Every structure is written in C-alpha cells, then in structure tokens.
C-alpha cells in the first residue's frame, strides 16, 4: 500500500498549530514513515499536488480573498480535509475583528497603532487580496474532521494524523476535545 499523501497549509492563524505539530518531537520520524508529506508552509513545496493528496490539513480561518483561494484549492485537491485549531474550526482570536467593521479594524492596524507614524495608511493595490469577515473553514468549504484547540495538544495532533495515516477516521471525543483541561498541565 502506498503511503497516504498529506498536504498542509496555513491561512489566518499564527502558525501555532504547525508549531504544536512539531511538538510531537521525535514521533515526527514515525509519522514520516507512515505518510508522504507532499507540501506544507514549512517545507519546500507550498502547494498540494495537482494530482491530489489523501489528507489536507488547514490551519487558520479565512479572512481574505487569498485565504479563500487557498481553502478552495486544498479542498479540490484532497480527499479528507482537516480543520486544525480554533481559528480554522471557529475563526479563533482573529474573529475578534468581526465585532468591528473592516474599516475600523484596518484603521486600527495601519493608522492608529501606537508604533505607526503620521505616514501610516491602509494598503490598497489591485494586486493584494481583499480582506473579508473572518470565517471558519467549514463556512466556505466542507470539512471532514475538526481538531479544536488553541493550539491543539501535540498528542492529539499526533493521534489524529497517525489514525488518518493508517486509513482510520480519528474519534475525537471526551478529553481529546477538551483542550486546556486534563490533557494539558
């Protein structure tokens, strides 16, 4: 049986979920034995193969037109799509922005920040993406597996990926869901 192909990508997140993935430490060698990691933001190849992968993992929510493109591309090229972490699953911390208008958020970020001088302006160019409301991945494309957590515990990520690598759907219930409680200390 050929190794399952895996691709990951990050969108509107902090990369913390990928850091938590690396927190599985030496078990990453075991994981690499089980899967063929095709592309990820932390490897040379950034985009999933055109011929498709078995498992796609997305970190971060969708907060602009570029993220929309990333999510749709991943969905179209993977069989099983995993939402990894609170931003992908719920919108997460960036979704705090949704309680304000885009105009207010951009003004705060590019003009009113304490470290910005009088030249600060909201970027605007036809080539850059358009910001949108922060959305969970499943608001845009269907998602098969949700791994909540901010970030999800390394053990839970390892469990989920190891199950997927062996052709099983991970059963995330009980303590596997309750990040920040008994699984962490």
């Amino acid at each position, binding site marked *: 049986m050929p190794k399952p192909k895996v691709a990951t990508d990050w969108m509107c997140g902090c990369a913390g979920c990928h850091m938590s993935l690396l927190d599985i430490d030496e078990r990453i060698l075991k994981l690499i034995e089980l899967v063929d990691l095709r592309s990820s933001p932390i490897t040379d190849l950034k985009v999933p193969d055109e011929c498709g992968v078995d498992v796609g993992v997305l970190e971060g929510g969708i907060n602009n037109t570029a993220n929309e493109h990333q999510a749709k591309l991943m969905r179209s090229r993977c069989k099983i799509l995993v*939402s990894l972490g*609170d931003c992908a*699953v*719920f*919108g*997460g*911390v960036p*979704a*705090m922005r*949704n*309680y*304000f208008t885009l105009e207010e958020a951009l003004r705060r970020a590019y003009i009113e920040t304490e470290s910005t001088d009088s030249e600060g302006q909201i970027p605007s160019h036809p080539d850059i993406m358009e910001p949108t*409301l922060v*959305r*969970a991945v*499943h*608001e845009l494309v269907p*998602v098969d597996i*949700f*791994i*909540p957590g*901010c970030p999800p515990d390394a053990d839970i990520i390892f469990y989920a990926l190891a199950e997927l690598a062996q052709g099983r759907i991970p059963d*995330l*219930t*009980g303590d596997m*869901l*309750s*990040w*920040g*409680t*008994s699984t962490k*200390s």
Partner: protein
Amino acid sequence: MVNITIDGKQYEVKEGSTVLNAAQEAGIDIPTLCDHPSLTPYGGCRLCVVEVDGMRTLQPSCTLPVGNNMVVRTNTEKTKAARKFILTLLFSERNHLCSFCVVSGGDCELQNSAYAEGMSHWPIQPTWQKYGVDSSHEFMVLEHNRCILCRRCVRACGELVGNFTLGFEERGSRSSLIADLGTPLGESSCVSCGTCVQICPTGAIIDRWSAYRGNVENIDKTLTICLGCSVGCGIDVFTKDNNLLRIEGNWDGPVNHGVICKVGRFHPMKEDRQRILTPMIRKNGALKAATWDEALDAAAHTLKPAVGQANSGVAALASTRLSAEALSAFKQIFADGFHSNMVTSIEEGAPTAITAQLADELKTSFEGNLEGLLGSDCVVALGINLIDSHEVPGFFVKRIHAEGTKLVTIDPSSNPMDVLSDHVLKGRKGSDLDLIEGLHAALYKKNFVEGAAPFDVEKILAKAVIATGISEKDILAAAATIGQSKKAYFVYGKGITRNNDNRALKALLDLASSTNQDDSRNVLSVKGQANSVAASRLSLDKTFEMNGHKVAFIAIGDDEPSERLIEKVEKSPFTIVQSSYISKLTAKADIVFPVENWLESDGHYMNLEGRLQKANKSLQVEENIKSNVEVFKELADRVGLNLAENWEVELTKRTPISCEIK
C-alpha cells in the same frame, strides 16, 4: 409515591418531584444548563429535554412533574440531536470563543456541555453581534457577550439573596441582563454578595480578582468557614501556588447553603495590611527585629512577676477571631495561671455577653437557630441592622419576606430594613423595654394570647405610648401582625442590650414565648465576631479596661484594633501584642509576636447558633510566623504553666445560649 420508568428501569419517586430530580436520584445524568439545585426550575435552556411516551414533543425534564406510569427516555438519538442543536443555537447567539474567555478550561458549564455532547465545532457560526460590557462594579464585571440568558443570576439574586437587583430587559436576541431599571451594576441596588458570579454557568459574570488566574483544573480548593462574623458560613477557598484566588459559598454549607456576603467573598481579596514577618522587641524607643527566643524570653521576663496579681498584673485581651483552641489556651494562661481579673475578648457592644448571662441566670438555653428563622412567617427585628452586618441572615429575612413573611422593624435609629418592613416602630432612644412590654400588652388586648394578662394591659400600653412616642394604633397594628402569624421569630442585636441592661431582653423573651405555639425557640441574637459564642462560653466576655494592670497582653490575631482599644492600651505601661498585621496597636507595643491569619490556621469556631465548626487552613504560612496556639504554648512553658488541651470540655462549662446543633 408514583411509578416512573426511566431508560427502561422502574423507579418509585415522590409525587410532585420533577423528571430531572427523579432521574438524578436514580443516578441517571441528564445534562442541564439553566437548572441549578438551589434554584426553582426555569426551563429556559431546553438542554435537559427527554422523550416521554404519549407526548408529541420532547419535554424539558427540569420543569416536567412526574406522572404515574410515565415512561421517559433520556438518551435517544432524538434527544441527543436536540441537545446538540440547542447548544449550536446557544453558541451562535453571542461570543462564545473559548480561547479568549476567562472561565474556559473546566469552569464553563457551556463548554463542558458541548464536550459532553461531543461537539467539535459549531455547525452555525456566530452572528458577530456586539453586546456591552458593564465594568462599573468594584468586584464584578458583567460580560453580556458571554451571556446565554439562562437567568440563573436573576433567580439567585431574588430567590437566594432576596435582593431582586438583577432582571432582564428586551426580548429575543436583544434580551439583556440588567441591574434595577438599567442602572450600571456599580451604581445599582446590588449588595455585592457575588452569588451571581458563583452561579453563572459561563463567563458572563466574572469576578475581577480571580479572572485569568487559573481554572478549576489547576487550582486547589479548601472547604472551610468564613470568619467574617458570627454566622459561620461554609466557604470554598480557591488557591494557587499558595495565593488566594477566590472564595465561594459552599452549596452544602449547613448554615448558609451556598450564599455568602461581600465580607466573605470579596473583602479578603482587598486585604492590604502589612504582614508582620518577625518577632519584634522595643529597644531605645523603636521596635527592632528579634528572634522568637529573645521575644518570648523578654515577654516571660515581664510577665512572670504578674503571676497571682489579680488587680495589678496583666490585663489580657483576645480577638474573637481566634479559634476555640487558642481562646482556651489564652484563658488557661491568664485566668487560670496568672489569676488576673481582666481576661477577656474583644466584643465591644455585641449582645453575646448579656445573652449568655441571662442563660446562666435562667439556667436554660432560650435561643433558636437560622433554620427556624427561615421557617418563620413573621420576623421581628429589634435593634439590629441585618443589611450592613451579618448579611446572610439578612438575605434569609429578605428571601422569606419576598415569599410573604411579614417584617416588623424596631429600631430608634434609621435602619435600611425600614423600607422593606410591614411595620416600622421607631420609639424614642432608650424606650425599647417599654415598646416590647407595650407589644406584649397589645397582644393581650387583641386577644392573641389566651388567659388573663399577668399585668394591667391598658396601663402598660399607655405607658408604652408615652415612653416611645409611637401611637397606640401603630403598636396594636404591629401586634396584630405578630399575633396573626403562625411562627413569629424575634431577631435582636446590640440595640436592645445596651449598657449591660438585660431588662429589655427579659421582656422580649416573655413576648416571644407568648406568641409561641409549638414550644420551639423563636428568639435569636446575632452576636459579635466569628468565635463570639466560644469566648463567652469561656467567660471571656467582660469589657476590657487596663484598671491599673502593669502589662497589657493583646492577642489581636488578624483582627483590626478599634480606636477605642488603642486608646485604652495607651495607658498600659508595657504592652505585648500578638498580631498578623502592622497596626496602630503594634506601633504602641513593646513586644510583638507575628501570628497566622485566618486562612493559615486550623481551629474550631462556634457560630451564633452554638454550632461548632472547624476552620481548615488553605494557605501555608511564612516560616517565621507561628500559630496563636503555638505562641501561647511556648509562653506558658516559659512562665512555668501547663496547658491542658481540653478546649472542648472548657466550652461546656456554661449554660449554652441556644440549643445545641451537632
């Protein structure tokens, strides 16, 4: 009893109980959110829905009374789907992103419910509508974005505290928790008891102090009692890394049943007095750090000549916040060992001493308890303000008052209870005795007491009218309310026991017993501080004066000395103080012993009902600080006295004020 089948098993349950209670008693877990064991069922969240044979739709088990031969299923595909959908709707309404909420990670019942239902995401994302935050209150924050509209806080504020500050305005998604008629919480009629914080299932009402400092999974909890006053409420003290995080009322507390006041919940968080970390001895006019041996030796050296000097030796005073163990050791040293005629405790006007003397005189206990008060249908409050001190009995009175119990307030001074009262009798100062006798006479006049009066009814009544300045009509009206009640309860404070005069109290006992129909006790006084009753049992209850004594020994513990006490100690040629904190008193001391505060000590306390309860320490003490008992023991050793550890026996030496509660 009725028969009910839950999940295929038959149970016999009490008629009138709800399906939820029946299931809980049978050990079957039905998830709930708006329900709380201490509150009336509300049926707001619908998380507890069950399938009932013969009923078209799912039923909320918390409000559904059991019916005979009812068949209930609690865990079917239909109920599971409904629960998930209910949670989905709750999460979609407001901001329930756990990653930036203070109570997430074990303390949030909404989060826990979602985990229990196996929810990994929200099928319906939030509407991102912004709600307000009210941070006007000194101790609490209302975070409307986290509110699930369950109304637990509203019910607790009314049903448990009797305060009715919280309520709701608007409808649907615009529903909003409000204080009074929309006043900022900090400016509202809120009494800062914090019951709403404790009962809120989410992070909608949070306390400022413990926010973000740890959740239930990684903090320690100690069950103990509050030492804020003589009520002795059961509390849970939450600590982390030997730091106080927060205090909650213990729901199983036999005295308070979960409710506490701001003195218990929030005031300990404001503790900003400076701790004493080393023994000190005055040298060349200034207090200098010393070792324990030096300080104890110096104290023993000064105290030794005072042994046997009843009038001109040592005057000893202990705080009634000290444990029974410490008070007993204190008494053994200074009363039994030194034979001083001035060995007492700080009560400063509390009615305990006079009440205890009367019990001795009558050779019987005559007071009831808080449970009795809660069962009363007419409360007569004499010379007492239960709004500003001893608040928990005050909550009880307000609670039953809202349910129809009449309230008669007798106090010459303006009293915040006046506005709640059905009758306010404001006599001239010092006319309490006449008023009580007048009420008694009025009961006879209105034929609420059988038999002939042992006094001239009209004469006594006329005398009361003249002495108090209250009209006969008002006295008769109040007496009619008392007479018509099934169980009148008389709660009194220092207002009627002033100047060591027990005549008003005696008259009150006569009045109370004449209204008593079932011979159970119906009088209760609120006493002074946490161990007021134990101190009085040890006869440590006279008024403190130096009276020519050469040394003052003040075991103030973690208490705050009053100006009056400091003035009295000023006359003392030599002063030894045992204290947790720096104060004006320690500034005047010649020797200072640093001791534990209430959170750091174990010990027993006797509450206003005579209930003996154990306080358990929740914090570890600094290395160089000793317990009050340890200091007494070491001091006794040095002056050649033996201390017995029979404090329990010592407590039984006087007639108890109230019937014992085990």
